[in-house]
């Protein structure tokens, strides 16, 4: 059985609102995981509901020629997340602590473990201090593994802008993680 592309389903839902349920069936698991990574499972449950209600209300604005609604839904999700920056920051710091603590390792690895203890909280802080547009582009790219085109579609930006935001985000991270004139940079 062939299933109609998202654009067609959303187009149909304009006259037949219940059809929108299929969009939920197709993409809710992915978006719940996306939101869960950012704010944790408990907050994500509420947000996924908000995301789909907004999507339903705005379904007229979806370009019906698109086959996949996922990037558009990611974009709505990104906006919904903006209101929950505190929960996001908390979770990011907790992830960093968890990674930094890591399992006990043998002697040879202990240097790396020490590095990690310092490094991960620093990366977490760095991500957190990125300006919203850069953080969003970075996390859609690195965590959701969306290609540039999909990130551009989600954030409603030209692809060139996405590229430059990602570059800025990378540069800022590098700067924050490896302050100039410190340890490992000296050798260069």
């Amino acid at each position, binding site marked *: 059985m062939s299933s109609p592309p998202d654009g067609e389903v959303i187009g149909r839902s304009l006259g037949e609102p219940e059809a929108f349920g299929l969009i939920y069936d197709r993409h809710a698991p992915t978006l*719940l995981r996306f939101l869960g990574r950012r704010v944790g*499972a408990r907050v994500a449950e509420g947000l996924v509901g908000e995301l789909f209600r907004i999507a*339903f209300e705005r379904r007229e604005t979806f370009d019906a020629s698109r086959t996949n609604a996922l990037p558009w839904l990611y974009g709505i999700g990104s906006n919904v997340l903006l209101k929950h920056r505190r929960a996001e920051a908390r979770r990011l710091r907790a992830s960093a602590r968890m990674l930094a603590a890591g399992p006990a390792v043998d002697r040879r690895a202990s240097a790396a473990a020490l590095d990690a203890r310092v490094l991960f909280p620093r*990366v977490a802080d760095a991500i957190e201090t990125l300006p919203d547009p850069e953080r969003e582009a970075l996390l859609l790219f690195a965590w959701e593994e969306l290609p540039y085109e999909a990130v551009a579609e989600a954030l409603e930006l030209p692809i060139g802008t996405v590229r430059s935001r990602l570059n800025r985000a990378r540069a800022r991270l590098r700067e924050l993680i490896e302050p100039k004139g410190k340890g490992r940079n000296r050798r260069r």
Partner: protein
Amino acid sequence: MKPVDLAKKLRRDAAFEPAVLDRGKAALMAAIQQEALPTRRPIIIPQLPYADIRAALSFLERAFGFREIPSSRMQAADGVIHHALVEFGDGVIGIGTQGAHGAVSPQSGGIESQYISVAVADVQAHYQRALAAGARIAKEPRPGGHAYEALDSEGHRWRFVHERLREVPTR
């Protein structure tokens, strides 16, 4: 290690129960159904306070033929109804909680500060229906008359008149 790879390492998945997806779907479909309902925007909705909304809704339907709009009901988890809308023809009336918005039911206030007149096609038939449902008649219809007044379950006064007498001049 590249900055993006470091960022990737911080990605952590949250475990969620499968029931979360079902709950989300149910909530979305309920919202969609709400949206799909035909709506109207009356300019004026009279709001009447009642001490017992459930009893009022039942009485207004039995005696006067006012039907509750099912999707309008606002009900707390404990089953207490806080507000509902009833319709009659193209008219809509809000049935609210006494004390809310400063409105008092005549049952406890002891006075009727207003009455509402309603146009009906057959005044006599309407009167018989109200009588049979146990409505207190405040003003009997005159023989062959075209109006009567009744009090509802909490003493709000209603005047039912023949629809021909309900015409409002346009200027």
